[in-house]
């Protein structure tokens, strides 16, 4: 089923929230000091994306167009509040690190964007899939960004991962001994730098793919997120 494949590809790569749509820059830059924080933030956002997508889709025929934004915000903030409380209860340590940013998920433009562009026009099933794929794409992007910053910044990878995922995942935590770290990468400028270079790398891959497909057949469907 090509429709499903399209949605999956869009969320993970073609229309990735961070690298293509450039939405949700605040959590992207603010919470990616480490791969674990990025993962936690990504997962929380994914939960919100899926549930708010389903809710918006369910109510899409009864929401008046003129007040839709306000209604979306209401639905999203309900979900975000639930996620906030759930994380505080079950992932208390991580919540202490990300606490400030969890309530701010509600103003993540990516969620509003998917509600407006996708969920409000589609059936709940597709909206859930779209939310899930966008969320996974967002999570992966945040994890990569956090991983790069953490590795260069302090020479670790997935530090404190067991805090988020439980003791079984303690093996993920890597540490480079004797590395002094580049403080800049952990600080806000590092977020902008790493993001800029990652987006540039992606654009380069797309340009190469485009050149290849132009060589093969003219007019191949490439939806580069520029």
């Amino acid at each position, binding site marked *: 089923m090509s429709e499903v494949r399209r949605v999956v590809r869009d969320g993970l790569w073609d229309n990735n929230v961070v690298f293509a749509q450039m939405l949700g820059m605040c959590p992207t830059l603010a919470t990616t000091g480490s791969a674990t924080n990025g993962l936690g933030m990504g997962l929380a956002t994914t939960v919100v994306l899926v549930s708010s997508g389903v809710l918006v889709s369910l109510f899409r025929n009864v929401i008046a167009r003129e007040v839709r934004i306000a209604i979306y915000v209401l639905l999203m903030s309900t979900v975000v509040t639930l996620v906030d409380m759930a994380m505080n209860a079950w992932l208390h340590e991580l919540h202490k690190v990300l606490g400030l940013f969890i309530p701010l998920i509600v103003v993540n433009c990516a969620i509003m964007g998917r509600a407006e562009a996708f969920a409000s026009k589609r059936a709940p099933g597709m909206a859930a899939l779209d939310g899930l794929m966008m969320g996974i794409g967002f999570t992966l992007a945040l994890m990569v960004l956090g991983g790069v910053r953490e590795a260069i910044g302090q020479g670790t990878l997935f530090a404190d991962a067991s805090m988020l995922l439980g003791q079984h995942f303690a093996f993920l935590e890597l540490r480079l001994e004797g590395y*002094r770290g*580049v*403080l*800049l*990468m952990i*600080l806000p*400028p590092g977020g902008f730098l790493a993001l800029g270079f990652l987006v540039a790398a992606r654009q380069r891959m797309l340009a190469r793919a485009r050149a290849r497909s132009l060589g093969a057949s003219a007019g191949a469907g490439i939806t580069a997120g520029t």
Partner: protein
Amino acid sequence: MIHSPYVRKAVSVQRTMGLVLLALIPGIVAHALLIGPGVLVNLAISTITAVGAEALMLHLRKRPVAIAVGDLSAVVTAWLVTLCFPPIVPWWLTVCGALVAIVAVKHLYGGLGQNPFNPAMIAYCSMIVAFPALMSQWPPAGQLSFDTQLALILGGARDIDGITGATALDALRTGLRSGTQTVDAVLQGSAFGALGGRGWEWISVGYVAGGLFLLAKRIITWHMPLAFIGVLAGISTLFWLLDPGRFASPLFHLASGGAMLAAFFIVTDPVSGATTPRGKLLFAGGIALIAWLIRNFGAYPEGIAFGVLLMNMCVPLLDMKTQPPVFGHHKDAKGGGK
């Protein structure tokens, strides 16, 4: 009598940059004699790195490599980067700084003439934020042998601590923060000379000599150095007169840190600075004001670099708002019909 129009001799980038390098030499010589020859090693490292990076970036960008490398602009950037860094930073820090300046600040924004920020100042700021401890090791005058300096630069003596004294600005800040000492009491300390930091003040004199040479050669105009020195001297005099116990004298502010290097070589950067006469005055004055504020009230001992970057951001606005009226037009006559 000679009448207009005059034919001007074209000034090549290479000649300008060559004269700037020449003008830096008195300061560098003073630096090498008083503090130690470590600075020369780092100058060599940064020059090689910067020229290499310049050639590589030009090659990647498919530009003619030989012409642009030969214009010496990368060498000027490299020298300025090194002269803002402490002279005994490890070699890789110099390499990082030169790479940031050339690759990120200069070429990612389009190469010579296109960068909105001063490359040397971005290199300084990014390195002091990334490696605050290493970037604060300023050696006191004449206390480190060449061997020690070389070992520090090349990484043979990673863990020598306590060989570096506080700089004049650092010592003054710490002394004043303790709350019990006045400026005069702090200035009795060993880090201080007649004007500013002991030894460092003569390097400042070297930079002034080079700056005057550049002024005489008309490589730089008087606006920026004058506004920078004038505002820094003016505001420090004002507060010094109000409360000499808490604020250092204008002479101290001018002779300490990178004030003179900045006045003649940094703020006068023709690419990232303002271009109109009034814009230049505001630009350099703004830097001096921010530098003084950070020195006295900020978290870092030296604020010139941050001042330069903040004012770099204002340059488009300054240039737009200070366009001189075209000859024959009145300022308030729109369209200039009368």
